[in-house]
């Protein structure tokens, strides 16, 4: 099976629980299990090839420009971790099915779990460090979801947040480190990086890259001083702890160190940072674990300690130490996952994980006792179990160190001693001792489903211990070869004869047993010793970071819009100024056009209206009139400078905009009060003047120069008729050359109209609806709201303007016009009816739903575009032809007309829907609904009969 498919399978599997959970929990679990099993099988099928020393790869180009490629590889190391992730994943899926209660939504759990599994598999199979980083972040995110799975528990949420913060921060550091590494190696492919050892280690950036990558690895693998998040993550359901925090996620850091071992290790920096961190972590974790009361906390700190052990071995940088590290990864995964599941079973059976409340479970839970004892003995390093083998190898490597040998020997032995102590404690304080009668819940052994997984692991613990070379030797060889890059043939023995390692081991076991016998007084001493609490420090830090972040946000955005806009304007001016003075605009090449009187009059009007606008904007109706004047001058400006389409569009938009603003003004205050000091206004005027000078200056500079680059407009002019079949080049560009843009734009226009409709819907409900119902109009109404003259005039105009609209639409392809303008003209024609006779009267007389118009418009444009597919052309390619109908001249039909029809419908729908929304507000506010076309009643029969 392709490595890429193996990495993809869990992600596909993540979709299944959501689809299948209605069929039951078992079905969902089976689906996830089957997916995992298939992936595992696919992986195992590669074993023969990997044993021959081959590397299986799959390469896909993703973003080749930044060298981010979906390259996957399976070598011995990937195989080892893949088996751990998928194999233990399979057990966890089974275990979780029986562990989670009916109240827990198990589908969600399985989805998170499969996502996490996919991310982990992605990490170990990646052959590109950028791809690896993506999966790395995915594990942080998915583990956040898993740790916080019981979201009703504050501890779960806090633990999840802490884990995300710490591992996420480490991930950021690692991204930087990986980028440096890739830059040095000249490639982001792991295969290439592994060949660039010389270049990397001699680079001046080696130490920086090393430290950054190690921060990522240490945070993920809970190494000192980042170890504190792991115990808090124990708030997760036990299957999560067993999976993430023993077998997989915390091993991702180790995996990374092992993966990059050939290029990073072997330097003094590597030794001192990695080996020392590992040693300190090993000691500290074992020490704390000895005194923890919570079973899972004990296991969590023990995990920290064992991860430290493996880190230390990797830090030694020797071939043999790497073998020991790999072997211990296997062994730790087997016994620790079994122990976590045992802890879960005990929690399940007794409803407590507090060691102080347990003891004497031996008879009550015999199966659990057996499983837990074997696993714990292996953790203690008692022969002939597998934990003994790798611990011996570790002590042996410590004994053969070149640097700081004695120091490491002493500390490692002490750590081993504590490790024995807490392992035995797990057996003695939980299972042995007198049976009690105050368990929170009567203990009993669980069903087969719960203990099957740990039992299988414990069998492995024994078998690997007895037959290490048969059971695990091949896997150790394959992965150690991949880690070190040298062919490895390990030979693991139970009995090495009497050597320093054995003596250290015996010292540790004896010391651990003695320490356990004195546990009570030592615990009392421990409790009295002051220690820094990592969580308090972390919370203190987070609080300050949050406060600073909020303070910065508050300082930047204080809710004042003018301030933000002024800052934006000044920043734009500043950036524009820099661009102007650092760039070169080229020489002035275009002569000035002569000023003609009509243009000068237009200019005078614009300047006068703009000036009045500034001075009289407080009188809002007047300001609207002035806006209208400026808009008109702009339309004339377009018409004057050879843009008839723009002129038509601008003038019709102008009408619609002013009507809309007028309707809104109906509700808003009619005057703006002076609220600012003259100094304030002076400052605003200063900014405005700067902006005006800048923008005007820029316009002038553009106008006096020719194009800096050859324009593509010549192509449009040359091909408008040939390719698009139209003479109006602007229209052909809209519906053909740049039809995609237009399609997007009518969609946006439709969305804007729907947003207005939605806003209105909210206004018509809740608090604002009550305000509207009690609305007091602040100005007197005209007595004649629907004047006779206006009604008659608009009725006469309506058919004419509709015909004009259709005419403009039809001729648009060859003469100024088109869907946009026609839509606006028709909308204005309809609007006039509404203005003349009131909304309700007009609405009753037309049956077009505006939402549907918008939808139909977008669909018509889209369908026209898709039509091109049937001709084997890309989306929105137009075709045209000439047709002859009887009695009519020959005329042209282009598919672009269908598209333009879409534009037309969308524009009409959007404009009318916006108006519709305003009028609904008006009616809610108590504007009387008229049922007659005009205020003056012309009919005879409805006249009230006068009494004679």
């Amino acid at each position, binding site marked *: 099976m392709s490595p890429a498919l193996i990495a993809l399978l869990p992600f596909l599997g993540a979709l299944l629980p959501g689809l299948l959970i209605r069929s039951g929990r078992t079905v969902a679990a089976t689906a996830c299990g089957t997916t995992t099993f298939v992936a595992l099988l696919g992986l195992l099928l590669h074993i023969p090839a990997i044993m021959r020393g081959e590397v299986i790869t799959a390469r896909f180009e993703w973003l080749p420009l930044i060298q981010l490629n979906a390259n996957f590889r399976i070598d011995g190391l990937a195989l080892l971790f893949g088996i751990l992730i998928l194999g233990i994943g399979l057990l966890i899926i089974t275990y979780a099915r029986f562990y989670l209660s009916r109240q827990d939504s198990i589908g969600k759990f399985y989805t998170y779990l499969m996502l996490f599994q996919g991310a982990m598999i992605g990490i170990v199979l990646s052959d590109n460090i950028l791809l690896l980083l993506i999966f790395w972040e995915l594990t942080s995110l998915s583990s956040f979801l898993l740790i916080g799975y019981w979201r009703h528990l504050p501890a779960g949420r806090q633990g999840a947040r802490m884990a995300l913060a710490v591992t996420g921060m480490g991930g950021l550091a690692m991204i930087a480190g990986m980028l440096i590494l890739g830059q040095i190696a000249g490639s982001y492919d792991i295969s290439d990086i592994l060949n660039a050892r010389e270049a990397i280690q001699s680079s001046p950036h080696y130490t920086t890259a090393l430290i950054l990558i190690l921060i990522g690895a240490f945070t993920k693998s809970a190494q000192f001083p980042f170890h504190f998040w792991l115990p808090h993550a124990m708030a997760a359901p036990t299957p999560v702890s067993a999976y993430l925090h023993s077998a997989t996620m915390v091993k991702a850091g180790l995996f990374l160190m092992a993966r990059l071992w050939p290029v990073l290790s072997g330097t003094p920096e590597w030794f001192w940072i990695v080996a020392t961190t590992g040693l300190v972590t090993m000691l500290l974790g074992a020490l704390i674990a000895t005194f923890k009361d919570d079973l899972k906390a004990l296991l969590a700190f023990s995990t920290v300690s064992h991860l430290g052990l493996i880190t230390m071995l990797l830090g030694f940088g020797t071939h043999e130490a790497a073998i020991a590290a790999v072997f211990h990864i296997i062994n730790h995964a087997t016994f620790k996952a079994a122990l976590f599941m045992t802890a879960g079973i005990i929690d399940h059976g007794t409803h407590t994980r507090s060691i102080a409340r347990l003891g004497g479970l031996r008879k009550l839970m015999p199966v659990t006792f057996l499983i837990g004892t074997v696993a714990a003995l292996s953790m203690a390093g008692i022969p002939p179990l597998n934990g003994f083998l790798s611990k011996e190898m570790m002590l042996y490597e410590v004994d053969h160190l070149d640097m700081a040998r004695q120091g490491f020997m002493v500390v490692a032995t002490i750590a081993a001693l504590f490790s024995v102590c807490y392992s035995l404690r797990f057996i003695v304080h939980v299972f042995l001792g007198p049976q009690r009668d105050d368990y929170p819940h009567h203990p009993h052994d669980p069903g087969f489903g719960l203990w099957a997984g740990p039992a299988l692991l414990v069998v492995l613990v024994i078998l690997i211990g007895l037959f290490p070379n048969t059971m695990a030797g091949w896997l150790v060889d394959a992965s150690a070869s991949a880690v070190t890059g040298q062919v490895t043939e390990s030979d693991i023995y139970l009995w090495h004869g009497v050597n320093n390692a054995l003596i250290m081991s015996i010292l540790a076991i004896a010391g651990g047993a003695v320490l356990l016998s004195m546990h009570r007084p030592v615990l009392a001493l421990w409790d009295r010793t002051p220690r820094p609490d990592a969580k308090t420090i972390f919370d203190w830090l987070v*609080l300050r970071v949050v*406060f600073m972040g*909020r303070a910065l946000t508050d300082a930047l955005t204080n*809710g004042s*819009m*003018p301030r933000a*806009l*002024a800052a934006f*304007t000044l920043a734009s001016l500043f950036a524009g100024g820099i661009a102007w003075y650092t760039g070169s605009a080229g020489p002035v090449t*275009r002569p000035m*056009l002569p000023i003609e009187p009509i*243009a000068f009059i237009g200019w005078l009007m614009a300047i006068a209206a*703009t*000036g009045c*606008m*500034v001075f009289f*904007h407080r009188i809002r109706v007047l300001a609207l009139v002035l*806006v209208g004047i400026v808009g008109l*001058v*702009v339309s004339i*400006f377009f018409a*004057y*400078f*050879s*843009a008839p389409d*723009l002129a038509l569009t601008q003038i019709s938009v102008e009408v619609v905009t002013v009507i*809309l603003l007028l309707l809104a003004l109906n509700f*808003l*205050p009619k005057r703006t009060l002076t609220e*600012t000091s003259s100094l304030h206004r002076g400052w*605003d*005027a200063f*900014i*405005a003047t700067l*902006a005006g000078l800048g*923008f*005007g200056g*820029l*316009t*002038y500079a*553009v*106008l006096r120069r*020719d194009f800096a680059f050859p*324009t*593509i407009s010549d192509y449009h002019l040359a091909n408008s*008729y*040939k390719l698009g079949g139209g*003479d*109006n*080049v*602007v229209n052909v560009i*809209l519906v053909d050359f740049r039809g995609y843009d237009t399609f997007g*734009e009518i969609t*946006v*226009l439709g969305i804007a109209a729907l947003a207005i409709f939605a*806003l209105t819907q909210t*206004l018509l409900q809740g608090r*604002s609806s009550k305000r509207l119902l009690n609305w007091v109009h602040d100005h007197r109404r005209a007595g004649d709201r629907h004047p006779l003259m206006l009604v008659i005039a608009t009725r006469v105009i309506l058919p004419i303007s509709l015909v004009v609209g259709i005419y403009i639409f039809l001729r648009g392809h*060859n003469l100024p016009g088109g869907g946009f303008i026609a839509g606006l003209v028709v909308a204005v024609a309809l609007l006039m009816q509404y203005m003349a006779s009131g909304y309700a009267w007009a609405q009753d007389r037309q049956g077009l739903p505006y939402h549907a118009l918008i939808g139909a418009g977008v669909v018509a444009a889209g369908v026209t575009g898709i039509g091109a597919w049937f001709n084997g052309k890309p989306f929105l390619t137009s075709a045209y032809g000439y047709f002859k109908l009887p009695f009519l001249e020959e005329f042209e039909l282009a598919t672009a007309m269908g598209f333009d029809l879409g534009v037309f419908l969308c524009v009409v729908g959007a404009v009318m829907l*916006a108006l519709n929304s305003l009028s609904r507000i008006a009616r809610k506010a108590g504007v009387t609904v008229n049922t007659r076309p005009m205020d003056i009643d012309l009919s005879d029969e409805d006249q009230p009969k006068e009494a004679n």
Partner: protein
Amino acid sequence: MEILVASAIGAITAAGVYLILRLRTFAVVLGMTMLTYAINAFLFTSGRLVVDLPPILLSHDVDSNHVYTDPLPQALVLTAIVISFGMTAVVVMMALGAFIEGGDDHINMPDEDRLMPPLKTIDDAKQIEDETA
């Protein structure tokens, strides 16, 4: 002629910027409308000023010597005008909604209306932290 166009665009921009710096919604809407004019006109002028040569083809002959103004900025500005209308409509409705809902048409958001009101001391932050925990 260029100087007239440039100065008018500059003046309209200045008025628009002045108006968007006001404290009431209606003035800001007006200011945005003014800015729309200025920007659309500016984009249009990137095709340079050409009189009486609209981009309507007079001949289908490729070798004809007819000269036209630049059609591309026109096409882009045409949709920009329509979109500006959509934007103005949405903004007006938001202003109206805010006025009906809130009772005044101030553009600034008072501190107490903010989803996350400003924190005075670190104890405020702690309190929020404790509440969410």
